[in-house]
């Protein structure tokens, strides 16, 4: 083995370059994860099956296709976000690849950000593929798929939030617990109306304040649910989608911030 030439290099990568490199690598890794394809195949099959199920109903057949299609995109998106997301950080730590990575002039938060963006890209691709399948099926039946776009957009936003949680928990604990906790957040996020009801029923004082605090802190994923509006072609309040995007993204950023803090303080022994 030979020595190098005399010139010394002292370069730290720019933030964008570092995050981009990690994101690209994460994308390449996630793309090769078999779980991804399994889920994708399931989702596409479901969309196909909805076509068959629509034969069972009386009346609007397309409703079934739209319902199942949107739910499949949402559900499998969440499953992908959880299963691929929690293993991302864990695998790097488990296999030791994180050591050589962090030995380089990269900051820990850049690592988290890169993982996040890489996974998001994969998710966006997935959602895109499934949406194309759904849209194609609807077009074939002479039905316009465009009203479904706002719902799909907010589904994507929901996935952003769930991914942020997946990363947060995977920085804190092992993949099984992390997956369970992320699912718990997903379920709770769709049950925030029960918190609202509970708050109205309580007598007041500390209990009410606790429940109210929980109501505000939990991500209200149901607000990002436009499936009914999309499927029934109901009028959408102007600016709703924009607000939804703002809410989802800002919430996700806060959770990511927490994930960065958790990862920053992590000891690798």
């Amino acid at each position, binding site marked *: 083995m030979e020595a190098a030439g005399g010139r010394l290099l002292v370069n730290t990568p720019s933030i964008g370059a570092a995050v981009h490199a990690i994101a690209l690598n994460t994308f390449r890794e996630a793309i090769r994860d078999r779980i991804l394809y399994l889920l994708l195949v399931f989702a596409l099959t479901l969309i196909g099956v909805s076509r068959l199920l629509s034969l069972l109903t009386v009346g609007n057949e397309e409703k079934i296709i739209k319902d199942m299609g949107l739910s499949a995109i949402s559900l499998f998106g969440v499953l992908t976000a959880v299963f691929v997301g929690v293993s991302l950080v864990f695998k790097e730590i488990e296999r030791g690849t994180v050591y050589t990575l962090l030995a380089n002039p990269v900051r820990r938060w850049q690592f988290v950000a890169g993982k996040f963006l890489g996974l998001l890209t994969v998710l966006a691709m997935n959602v895109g593929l499934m949406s194309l399948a759904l849209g194609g099926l609807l077009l074939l039946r002479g039905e316009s798929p465009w009203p479904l776009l706002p719902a799909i957009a907010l589904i994507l936003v929901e996935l952003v939030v769930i991914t942020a949680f997946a990363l947060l928990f995977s920085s804190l604990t092992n993949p099984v617990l992390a997956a369970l906790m992320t699912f718990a957040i997903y379920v709770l996020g769709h049950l925030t109306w029960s918190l609202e009801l509970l708050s109205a029923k309580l007598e007041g004082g500390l209990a009410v304040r606790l429940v109210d605090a929980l109501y505000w802190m939990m991500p209200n994923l149901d607000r990002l649910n436009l*499936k009914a509006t999309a499927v029934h072609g109901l009028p959408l309040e102007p600016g709703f989608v924009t607000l939804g995007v703002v809410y989802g993204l800002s919430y996700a950023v*806060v959770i990511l911030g927490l994930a960065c803090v958790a990862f920053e303080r992590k000891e690798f022994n």
Partner: protein
Amino acid sequence: MLPRVLFLVTMAAVGTLAGFSRGALDRLAEGTSAEQELLYLPNGKYLKVMSLGHANLLADGIYLWAIQYYSNYERKQRQRYVEHIFGDVITELDPRYVDAYWLGALIMIVENHDLEAGLRLLEKGIERNPEQWILPYLAAWECYHGKQYSRAAAFFEQAAAIPGAPDVVRRMRAGMMTKVGSLREALALWRAILGESASDRLSVVIAKRKIRELETRLDVETLQAAVDRFRKENGHYPSRLGELERRRYIRALPLASDGRPYRYDAATGTVSSKSGRMLGKL
């Protein structure tokens, strides 16, 4: 130090943004979400398939939600989909959910004043739960409140036929018969209740009273009919009730339960009973 401060400030700012947008979203969603929630519940048949064996639980969940939802009087137009929720969703998910049938029916009848819809739901429940006497019983009551006495009677009969139905059901049936005006049938029913050894003490006491009442009423009816016939044929009222017996308008002169004859006012030709006040309006 500086990066940390910057980080905290950024987090606070973004968090506030999240909070505000959440508030705005909540406000926007307030008006519309009600409709959407209701509309988006697919038929119970589909839900059943999707629930992967947890249909009962899902029925419970929706039932609980529906209770909360419908107790919120401030919501406008919440009545529109009651029949769908209770009839097509909850009871399709769990056809044996007796509570859901009668609660749904109750909401429709009391809030919507839609007796037919309520009865539809109850009949669906009766069909699916033939061993539940409570459903026809409640249907009967609703008919009674809606002054549809013959239907009430039919429902009471249906309920009474179900084994395990308490005595009150048979009493109500007999009472409905009276209401409808089928006094003889009512009398027969009361006599049957009295005769049945399984009847409880309360039923026996009530039956005795009712039988007395009904016999009195029937007697008065018969006598009054005879008086009116007398008048028609003779042009004037009989002077005494005994005349009816003598002139063979009736076979035998019935006596009131206290052993005394019935009262008769020759001037107006009205037969009445002394125990009028006990019987109420005759």
